[in-house]
């Protein structure tokens, strides 16, 4: 990146400082304004009746009882919306061969998963709608359900979609080098394991919520939408409801967590918008926790047969795996449900030098809730496959897991280069991160403690992961395949008459602090007090056009756009000041909200005086001076498809072999996310991510019956990690700013979730391996650990 020179080490710097986020006080005062807080005149509440079965034909729907119920205004079925909503298809052209049939927001003839919307009741209150829903009679003709993804491709398996020859949605193979010889060479050790990764889901604190309001007088649809990508949703509402994009306004302001759950097209939201258009009055839909479990996208759900060949001296010679993943009956629109499998193929082994690599992923349809992108898409699977095999292999050749990593991790001075799968890698610091990790965790003491404790029947384990994270995606992620998803983002920065700065950005705030870092960057560039910077995000009508928040891009892409725009505004300010002060722009600078002499810092004029002169008393300026005090800049990554980050993490666990319970004693993470804009926010991103990763490793799983019934639909039965069980999570950084931007920031949002599961799995296996036991299924529940221990006993 050239063109803008920037001093990150000036005495007044804000970038890199642990500034308290400006919106924390507002949120803690209960002044957050979430979609469900909004009440509009004449608003109705939508309640979705969802399929109670996994697969079946809809024989009849009798809504007459509900139509007469108290407070009910209308009831819609799939057929009622058939001609109102253009069906959508979740495929992208760069995922060659991916197929998925057209999908309607509310099922029309056939239901294909338990939880699929079948009818919508509109009433004056949610309670009235729920009462009326009990009066709707729906008859189904149940069909055999495809539940087990491992059997979905069997010839005897029923087909989910008419006209498809199998339940296969997509498959891809990556084949590099000569894998077969790597495994057939008798000098190499081969370890082979079957990994299972359970289905889990995002569990946002604020559920999916939207209010759609349609004004027929100017054909205007406004949707308040708890989500991540307002411009994408603008396109989707417009396209599928037959509106002009400029007539659709999507507003996503305070959002109570997303984790990728809220970046997809759900039938619920589309139906609500369609009904708002039909009825000409506002409709609110708030998912309750029960329907969140049944209808928020699920994630993971992989079975992977994997093997690694390693030389006697500890070098990885080959890695090979077959992955199958079940995605539900459709590929989710518009991002598709093949991206996760694609990430697994692309990312597995990316930290290491692996000469021979072959991997196949099969993505299959099944009659379960849809699976799609959730925080750290594909990463936990990719990292676990390679790093757990690596530790297993190291154990076989009696090599320390740290040593085997030092041998195989790419050298920090070896970039740019490509990964085994061909991904372009640059500016990574695996070796340095590992060294820092070992130092901070006091590795040797932990090993000594492990042996000591074992004498007393206390089984502790230490597990590692070296990982990469895909961040700052370029158009190669979605746009290239035809998705209405911007990879660039923009920021408009404006000096107002009072001397305050207004930032408007197309990245969005999900509760993670995006607005805070945008303000911090802009205040740093402009030399103004942080409190004088106000930020607007999440409104297609008022912000620049952009992608929103996903794939850890808010800071790296949105932040860079803000930096560039602020820099442009600074030039405008200094140009105007130079006219007013009769000086050269290069002789001026801005400090503490004052235009100052660049050398002596003598204050010349405050920003408010300058702005008031420009805005109110233009008569004082020469006619040829036409100052502008607002600048917009956009930024996209052009150097590579993604900007990878790297990290090294370690988990210390204790396994109770009588109960199978695992306690995580400590967790350490060293992350290189490039330039850290606000260490408070980055550290909490890492910690929050690690907690979600521990959730996947030990607790979280969507359990289905053989008939495709989701069995755990409450927070009592679906176990999210809670504070009491979480260890201290120690975070440290290595900062290798990316040269692809001036700011140098890479993403930090998904590293913890991507890396922690493998570290925890390795730690559990490190605790148990000396007993002849290993476990390669997540979540590692007490029962699964007890079963593994019991099998060993039987074997002996």
């Amino acid at each position, binding site marked *: 990146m050239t063109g803008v020179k920037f001093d990150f080490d000036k005495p007044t710097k804000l970038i890199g400082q642990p500034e308290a986020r400006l919106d924390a006080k507002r949120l803690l005062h209960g002044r957050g304004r979430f979609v469900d807080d909004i009440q509009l005149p004449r608003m109705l509440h939508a309640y979705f009746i969802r399929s109670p079965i996994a697969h079946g034909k809809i024989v009849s729907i009798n809504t007459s009882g509900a139509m007469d119920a108290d407070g009910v205004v209308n009831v819609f079925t799939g057929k009622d919306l058939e001609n109102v909503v253009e069906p959508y298809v979740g495929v992208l052209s760069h995922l060659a061969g991916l197929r998925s049939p057209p999908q309607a927001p509310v099922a029309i003839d056939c239901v294909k998963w338990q939880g699929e919307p079948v009818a919508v009741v509109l009433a004056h209150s949610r309670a009235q709608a729920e009462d009326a829903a009990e009066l709707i009679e729906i008859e189904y003709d149940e069909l055999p359900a495809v539940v087990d993804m491992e059997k979905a491709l069997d010839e005897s398996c029923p087909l989910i979609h008419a006209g498809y020859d199998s339940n296969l949605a997509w498959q891809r193979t990556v084949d590099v080098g000569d894998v077969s010889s790597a495994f057939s060479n008798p000098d190499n050790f081969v370890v082979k394991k079957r990994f299972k990764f359970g289905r889990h889901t995002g569990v946002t604190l604020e559920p999916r919520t939207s209010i759609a309001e349609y004004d027929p007088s100017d054909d205007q649809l406004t949707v308040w939408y708890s989500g991540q990508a307002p411009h994408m949703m603008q396109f989707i509402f417009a396209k599928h409801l037959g509106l002009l994009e400029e007539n659709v306004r999507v507003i996503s302001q305070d959002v109570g967590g997303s984790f990728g759950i809220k970046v997809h097209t759900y039938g619920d939201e589309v139906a609500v918008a369609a009904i708002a258009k039909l009825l000409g009055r506002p409709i609110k839909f708030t998912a309750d926790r029960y329907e969140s479990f049944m209808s928020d996208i699920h994630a993971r759900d992989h079975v992977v047969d994997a093997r690694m060949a390693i030389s006697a001296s500890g070098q990885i010679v080959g890695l090979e795996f077959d992955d199958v993943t079940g995605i539900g009956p459709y590929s989710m629109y518009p991002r598709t449900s093949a991206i996760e499998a694609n990430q697994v193929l692309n990312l597995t082994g990316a930290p290491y030098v692996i000469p021979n690599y072959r991997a196949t992923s099969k993505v299959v349809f099944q009659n379960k809730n849809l699976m799609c992108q959730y925080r750290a898409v594909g990463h936990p699977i990719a990292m676990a496959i390679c790093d757990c095999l690596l530790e297993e292999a190291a154990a076989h050749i009696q090599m320390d897991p740290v040593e085997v990593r030092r041998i195989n991790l790419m050298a920090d001075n070896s970039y740019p280069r490509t990964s085994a799968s061909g991904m372009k890698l640059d500016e990574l610091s695996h070796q340095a991160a590992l060294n820092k990790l070992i130092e901070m965790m006091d590795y040797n003491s932990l090993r000594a403690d492990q042996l000591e404790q074992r004498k007393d029947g206390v089984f502790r384990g230490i597990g590692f992961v070296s990982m990469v994270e895909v961040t700052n995606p370029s158009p190669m992620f979605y746009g290239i395949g035809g998705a209405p998803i911007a990879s660039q983002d923009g920021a408009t920065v404006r000096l107002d008459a009072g001397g305050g700065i207004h930032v408007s950005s197309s990245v969005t705030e999900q509760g993670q602090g995006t607005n805070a870092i945008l303000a911090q960057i802009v205040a740093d560039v402009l030399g103004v007090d942080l409190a004088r910077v106000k930020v607007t995000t999440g409104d297609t009508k008022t912000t620049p056009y952009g992608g929103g928040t996903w794939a850890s891009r808010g800071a790296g892409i949105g932040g860079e756009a803000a930096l560039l725009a602020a820099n442009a505004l600074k030039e405008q300010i200094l140009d105007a000041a130079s006219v007013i002060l009769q000086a050269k722009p290069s002789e001026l600078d801005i400090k503490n909200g004052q235009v100052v002499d660049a050398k002596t810092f003598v204050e010349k004029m405050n920003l408010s005086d300058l702005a008031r002169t420009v805005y109110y008393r233009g008569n004082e300026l020469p006619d040829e001076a036409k100052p502008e005090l607002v600048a917009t800049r956009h930024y996209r990554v052009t150097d590579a498809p993604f900007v990878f980050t790297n990290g090294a993490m370690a988990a210390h666990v204790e396994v109770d072999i009588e109960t199978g319970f695992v306690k995580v004693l400590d967790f350490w993470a060293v992350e290189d996310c490039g330039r850290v804009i606000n260490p408070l926010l980055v550290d909490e991103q890492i910690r929050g991510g690690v907690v979600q990763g521990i959730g996947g490793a030990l607790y979280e799983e969507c359990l289905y019956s053989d008939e495709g019934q989701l069995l755990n639909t*409450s927070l009592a039965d679906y176990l999210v990690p809670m504070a009491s069980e979480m260890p201290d999570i120690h975070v440290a950084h290595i900062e290798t700013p990316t040269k692809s931007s001036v700011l140098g920031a890479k993403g930090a949002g998904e590293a913890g979730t991507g890396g922690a599961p493998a570290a925890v799995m390795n730690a559990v296996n490190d605790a148990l391996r000396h007993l002849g036991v290993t476990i390669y299924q997540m979540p590692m529940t007490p029962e699964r650990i007890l079963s593994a221990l019991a099998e060993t006993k039987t074997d002996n």
Partner: protein
Amino acid sequence: MKAPEFTYERPTEISEALAIIAQDAHEKAFLAGGQSLLPMMNFRLAAPKTLIDLGGLKDLKEIVAVEDGLRIGATVTYSELGASALVSEFSQVFDSVLPHIAHSAIRNRGTIGGSVALADPAAEMPAVLIALGASVELASQRGTRFVPADEFFHGLYLTERSDDELVLSVFIPNSSRSLSTGFYELARRHGDYAIAGVCISDDSRPSGSFNAPKVVLFGVSDRPLRAKSVEESLVGVARNDTRKIRSASEALSDLVFDSDLHNSQDTKQRLASVCVRRALEAM
């Protein structure tokens, strides 16, 4: 997840509450802390047409030492139980158990009477009361009666209580003062319902060996389970005889264990055995 419509009554006298419930009792429900009933109504698993709020009944909020024991009013909350010196003096088991019951916010509202009346098989309090030889005081317009806790719990959400009866109090006899107790539970996360747990009492303090232990499992069946074989095996076993304690704690084959979402019957039995042994070893 909105409750169906219901009417709401808030009597200020017990007699008034009993009069309300006397008619169409099966369509009415008493509301104490609401920590189980209200979520069940929101899930539409329970749909009483009338809720009778017990919050106005002062007598039900009292903890009183009477001549032959301790009377704990039905709407005494877990937090109040934990703060009562009287209760701690009667039995230390409450101090061991209470921190495991959900979280502070729930303990601030959840009541001992509610737990008993609901009879969730994974709840701690029913097992504790059986172990202590407590009884449940029930009242209706037909009269008042005391039912031993050991005979009160019939199955999943099923008890000896008739629809028209109100749990007035839980009575802990003076004999529980001299019991030594043990408690252990396994929950995946702190505050979760246990996947297996046990409450044990014994009056063996003077002799150094187990005398007449009561071993009450919870979270493993549709009701609290007395592990009679364990109890019999323990009689006469020295408290420090870890070998015999281990073998006694494995004497569970006379019981039928229920699986749950995450654990098979075998796992439940195995974990119950671990709980029993760990509770015994700590006594």
